[in-house]
Structure formats: C-alpha cells, structure tokens
C-alpha cells in the first residue's frame, strides 16, 4: 500500500491541486440576445388582454382621457433612449386615428427597462351610438428587432408559468354604458355586492346610487368606492328594489331574468 501511495503520490497531488484550482475558476457566462419589447400584462389590473372604456361612465365634461399601456423590454438595457414600437393592427381596428384615438410617441429611457405608452381617447358624438375597437400590438423595429410572440404569467403552476398572454391589447371604446370588464373578476365588489350583471341592473345601480365611476372591480384605484360606501349602496339598492317591487312587481332585465341582489 505504501508503495502504491508513493508511486501515485504525484498524480494524487496533481489531481488535488487541479480540483482546488478548478473550484476557484470564475465562470464567465456570456449572454447575447436581440432586444425585444412587449406589453407588460402583469401590470394590467383585471382583464389582461382588453378593456372596455366608456365615456358614459365619466363626467359629462370629459372629452379626452388617457389609457396607459405598460411595456417592458427583453434583453439588455440600452445607454440611449429607444422608441416604443407600439402600433395599431388595422385589420382588427375600427377606431379612427386622430378622431377616436392618438398614440403618443414614447421612449424607453436609457438604462431603464419599463415604460408607459399614453393612448389618448377622444369623446366623439358617434360613440354614443356605436362601439369602436382599437387593437394595439408591438411591432419590431431597428431598436427592438426581436419579435416576442407570447409572454408568460408570473404566477406558476407546478413550477411552470400558469398561463400565456397574447401579445396585443384591445381597447373597446364607446360613450355607452357597458358592462365593466372587471365585474366578474376575482374579488370583484361588483360581483359580491350586486351579483350577476345585466344592463338593466347596472343602469338601476347608477340611477339609485348616483355613482358612475367605480374603478376596476369597484375596489381598485383612487376612483373606487370604500367598503362602507359599497354597503351603503347595497342597502340603498335592496331597499329601493323592495319598494319598486311592491308597486310594479319584479324588475325584469333585458334577458328576461328578474333583477335581484345577493344576500350578504
């Protein structure tokens, strides 16, 4: 044994030293990729791929409003500003540029990875009679040559992203009373306090409460009511409906169903 050790001592020591040196070696990962940019759906509250915007839910004097589309880059940050190539998919759009909307040029600033593109929405008379659609998408450009087809959710299931977002974003614009996109969203106070949506019910809610601006899910953002306000609205609505039914019988909505409110 001693003989074998002496014979192989040099080899043992060499391997030992190599191992030590190998453990100290700095691994240099090299990453090169084309820059891309995508609509950051994770930043969007409620429905991620579209929104219904109605001037009917806003003050009567509001003629212009802005929706901000959050965007985020893929790849390295740049030392210079880069223009966000947010475009309109004409084949899916009925809104008229300049008449119904305007996309303001936006840049991702140097050494930043996110931005917000303002979309100006304009209140026009024809929106009282129809809804127009504005489908936004990210195009490739010299500064962002990589086309990103689908982005994944941050939330995961079994270690994998739980879902995939489509790349575009649809704005449905009108001056009519529309079902809020977030009525049926998880945790929505619309759903909790008012139950199943119908246009008749929503009109009744607005008439009885006097409130037209609710914010996403009727609970998010500065324009949303407080919980106490929601309880007060609920009390007003069930009381008013009770009195209405005493005189007129059940209130029937546009689908033929009776308007009711959930028991809390």
């Amino acid at each position, binding site marked *: 044994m001693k003989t074998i050790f*002496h014979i192989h*001592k*040099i080899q043992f*020591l060499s391997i*030992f*030293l190599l191992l*030590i040196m190998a453990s100290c070696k700095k691994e240099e990962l090299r990453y090169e990729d084309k820059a891309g940019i995508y609509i950051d759906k994770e930043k969007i509250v409620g429905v991620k791929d579209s929104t219904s915007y109605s001037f009917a839910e806003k003050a009567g004097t509001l003629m212009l409003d802005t929706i901000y589309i959050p965007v985020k880059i893929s790849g390295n940050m740049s030392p210079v500003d880069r223009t966000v190539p947010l475009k309109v998919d004409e084949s899916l759009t009925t809104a008229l540029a300049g008449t119904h909307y305007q996309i303001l040029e936006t840049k991702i600033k140097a050494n930043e990875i996110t931005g917000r593109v303002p979309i100006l929405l304009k209140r026009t008379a024809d929106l009282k009679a129809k809804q127009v659609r504005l489908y936004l998408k990210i195009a490739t450009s010299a500064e962002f040559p990589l086309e990103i087809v689908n982005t994944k959710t941050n939330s995961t299931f079994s270690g994998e992203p739980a879902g995939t977002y489509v790349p575009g974003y649809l704005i449905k614009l009108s001056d009519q009373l529309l079902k809020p996109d977030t009525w049926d969203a998880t945790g929505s106070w619309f759903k909790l306090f008012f139950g199943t949506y119908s246009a008749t019910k929503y009109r009744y809610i607005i008439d009885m409460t006097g409130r037209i601006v609710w914010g996403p899910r009727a609970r998010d953002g500065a324009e949303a009511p407080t*919980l*106490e306000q929601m*309880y*007060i609205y*609920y*009390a*007003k609505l*069930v*009381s008013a409906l*009770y009195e209405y039914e005493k005189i007129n019988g059940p209130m029937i909505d546009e689908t033929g169903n009776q308007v009711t409110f959930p*028991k*809390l």
Partner: protein
Amino acid sequence: MKSNILSLLSVLMLSILFAACMKDKSNYDLKPINEIEITALSTADNTDVLLNDTLRITPTVTQENVTNGTYTYSWYIFSDAFGPKIELSDKKDLKVAMNAPLGGYTLMYVVKDVSTNITSTVQTHVTITSRFGSGIVVLEEKPEGGDISHLGLDGKIYRNLYSEANKGSYIPTPVGQLTGFYFKGGESIQKPYYVFISAPGRTTMQLDPETYQDASPFSGLLASPPSAPVELSAIQGYWSGNAIYALVNGKVQFGSPSESTPSFYGALLGDYEVAPFLITSTTAGKSNTPAITANFICYDQKYGRFLWFTGGSVGQLNTYSTDMLSPGAFDPNNVKKKCVYACYSNQYAYYNWLMKDDLGKMYFYQIYPIGTQKAAAAYAEIPVAAAMSTATIFAGSTQLPHIYYVSGNNVMVYDYKSNTATIAYTAIGAEQITDMKFSVSRVAESSTSYQILRTTGKLYVSTYNGAEGKINEFDVSPTGALGSPVKTYSGFAKITSMFYKEKR
C-alpha cells in the same frame, strides 16, 4: 529527497487551506459599558390618569463610573389598540397633561448617553380615564329646561354639566329619555359608549360622553335617514361586533361597527313597525341546541308578531316558520298584544318580553333565537295581583329570573319562573319614582356566560318629591330583595332618565 519535498509541499498546501478557514481573532480596544440605570416608573402594574390631568414622574437616572454624563430623554406612549406612537416629552422628568384618547397605553422612557449612544429603557402601563368615564348619567328637568348631572361611582356628583358645556343653554322640553350605546368599533376601545337624548317629535340629540357638549344629531349616523324628526328608541350591537342595530321611527336600521364611529347603512326590509325594544342574541361561545340562527329579535307592533334577522347587511326581516308540527309555548307570528318591555333573562339565550292586551292584562313571553315555532320558549299570564298593567318603568336582571317594575310608589319584583310578584321597596311619603336602572357590564365572563348586557348587583331608583330629585342606591340581595337604600344621593331636579356607564 523527492518524496520528502512532495510531502512538505502537501503539508504546506493543507496548512494554507486550513488557514483560510481559521477564525479571525483580532485584537480589539475593549472598553467597559457604563450601563444606565433608571428607577421604576411606577410601583403598580398600571396607573390610572384622568383625561387632561398632569402626569408627573421623576425617575432617578444613574450611570456606572459616570458622574456628569450628558443624556437625551424621550417619553412616549403607544396605545393598547395599536395606535401610533405619541411623543410626550424630551425632558428628564415627565410633567405633561394627558390628553390622548381614553384607553390603555404603554408609557416608555428612553435615556441615551450622548457620548456613547448607550440607551436604557423602562416602561409602565397607564390608563387614561375620564371622570365621566363611569357612573350614572342623570337627565334632569329644571325650570329652564333639561340638564345633565353625573354621579360618579365614588359618590361624587358633578352638576349642571350640559348647561355649562353648552354656554348656558338647556335641553329643550320635554327633555325625554337617555339612550346609551356601547360601541366597540374603532381605535378608542375605552370609549365605547354614545349618549343620546330622545323625545317624541324631536330628532334625537347626541352628547359627547366625556364633556356632555351637544354633538351632531343622531341622524348623522344614518346613511339614509328617514324624514325628520329622526327618533331613536333603542340601539344595540351584536355580540361579535359584526352588526349594530338601531330602532328609528319604527324601523330597524342596520349598520356595521367596522368604522371608527357607528354608521348605519339603511333600514331592514319588510312591512313592520317595531316596538321600542331590541334584543341581540349571543351563542355565549357555546355549542347550543338547537343551534342559534337569529342575530336579532324585535316585536312588530303593527301586526302583533315577533320578527328576527340574520345577515351581514340590509335584508329582509323574517317571520317565524309556520310549521306547527313542533310547536312552542306560543305562536311567535300571532301574539297580537302591545309590547311594554323587553330584556335579557338570567339564561344567556332566552329573552323576555312583557305584553299587554287591550283589556290591560299582562303577559310574559320568552324567546329563544331561532326561526322556528320552537323559538317560543315560555309563556304566562301574569296575575292581576302583580299590579303590572299601569307600569311604565322596568328593569330586568340577568342574574336572577326577576324583572323589577314600578307600580304606584312601589318597586315590585316579578319572578317569571314562579309567575309571582312581590313588593321590593316602597318610596317614602309623596316620593314619585321616576326611573330605575341596573348597574351593568359588558365585560365577558366565561364563568357566568357572556351576555350582551349583564346586570350587576346595584339597582338605582330615582324619586321626586315635587321639590327635589334623589337617587336611591340598592344592593340587590341574592334573593332579589332590595331592602333599604344603601345610599341616597340628593340635590337633583326632577330626574326623567338615567343611564349607567360602565367602567372599561
């Protein structure tokens, strides 16, 4: 030789490797910590301080090996209800008026040595109370109008409180009745009560319970108040704090105590007009048989029936099941009498109601908080000999199966288990009995079962002889007998109403 060199190199290499793992034992310039010592702020676990009184504490601060140190000082409090820190003083000795909201606080005292940044902290607990925090609110009718006195539990009487707090003005006549509300929402958990004055034809007034200043009218607590006058007749909270109820203009207003002040969302639905009594139920933390399903019980004097409610917001008041296969002691849907009084009983889930028919005959009803016919737990025709039919002043005990009431110049006690009544006290001479209230507590006692409003061992009876009002304090005996007053407080005008404030 070669072998030895290799061995030497191996040892050297291993030494270097081991050295890399060696603990660093550097030399430090060590100095002793001169600890700061502060004497205890109080010898008691808690110190009661009256609101706006000056709290003075002069602690002794010493430091090891230091005679003329330079220090900074900080006195502050934070409430038991997780309120924000309140700075009191940056002086060595505390001498500050305690004007934080009523309640319990931890008082902190921090001393820092400026040269070394060594700090030392001591603490104690203080409770800011009000001289009007507990005792009996007394509503009097003077020639000028209504006024408020306060009878402290120490026997001290504070007079003319309303008129002095309201620049010489008085409560309009008729002065009406006091209604108190123990409200536990909000941060100021030690300030649970609201005080209202209700009179027919006038919107109920609200008083500041600490100063007796006129506060905003009661109708301000209603999101949808009815047409004026807005008259409050009863107000009560559900035991768990999930709901509050108020009887206003014959309707039940529902609210939530989630806000810092009571807020009522709207009236419960239905065709009804409630008698001025409401009972909120409790499970007392027990598994009840049958399971309790009613949060609240009232009596609809429009249709002569009991109604009940359960729910988390405004909804429909419920009638009782009409299934008579398992009847109770009476039909809760068909009582058809006038309710003259309601109270909690000496059993936590059974609630007493006294009714009068058109002929003046009196009846006893007892309800259990469920929605079936079995809710009707007990019923009795009260003997004429009880002389209850003209009574308007009642006080129910939760310790004994007794309801005290005033008949003529007698305080009678009705035992609803035996359905008999006896005289408990007779007022002297021409003394007119004007009100009667038990001492009460909302403090839960698991040993006696939690009740919404638990009466304790004192009964206060106010009298008026045409010139002077008095309050007679009785110790209620274990049998319910009153005996003679243990104390009599005099010098009042005619007392129309009393409200017992519990100390919390």
